[in-house]
């Protein structure tokens, strides 16, 4: 059974805090993705990684950074959380080649107060 696991289901953080969202996959996938999911806006790509220590900006990278030190783990970092970063965050992984299925985590609902 393939698995993408996000470390927290719900998080509440204060404005200005540094926030870490962790994602682990056990499928030996090269690609890993971080999205935020907002009603009416769909899934917007924050960052994408195709290999250890490699990353590419997505459509909305501002205010976020990522870390991929090991193939199975992809972390999303909010350097200084703001209320407009309150959202559902989804992690996904897939094989390197195009046309393959992406597998998603259960999501982390982050609330910044």
């Amino acid at each position, binding site marked *: 059974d393939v698995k993408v696991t996000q470390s927290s289901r719900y998080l509440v953080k204060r404005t200005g805090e540094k926030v870490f969202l962790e994602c682990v996959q056990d499928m030996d996938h090269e*690609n890993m*993705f971080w*999205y935020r999911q907002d009603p*009416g*806006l*769909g*899934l*917007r*790509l924050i960052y*994408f990684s*195709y290999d250890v220590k490699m990353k*590419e900006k*997505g*459509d909305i990278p501002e205010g976020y950074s990522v870390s991929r030190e090991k193939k199975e783990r992809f972390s999303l970092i909010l350097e200084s959380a703001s209320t407009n970063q309150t959202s559902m965050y*989804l992690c*996904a992984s*897939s*094989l*390197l*080649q*195009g*046309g*393959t*299925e*992406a597998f*998603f*985590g*259960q*999501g982390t609902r982050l609330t910044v107060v």
Partner: protein
Amino acid sequence: AQRVTQPEKLLSVFKGAPVELKCNYSYSGSPELFWYVQYSRQRLQLLLRHISRESIKGFTADLNKGETSFHLKKPFAQEEDSAMYYCALSGHGGGKLIFGQGTELSVKP
């Protein structure tokens, strides 16, 4: 630039009616197109992809390169089809996976 557009936020039909969820894309190159579905309180999961050319749960989607569309169709909707549907695109060689805004399908009894 890569872009996926789903023009309908909400589609409401009665059970047994035909369904078509629209998806248009913008991509310079050979795209790979997908439909993903999210049922209530479940993870996002793949429904189908254009390279498979298969029917899943009665749904089909045809890639029309001339119209840059990948509409999802089902001839007879069922209540269990009610969910959020996302169209997605990646390059033929892999890379970024970009999603549309999503369409909520509601099938009424």
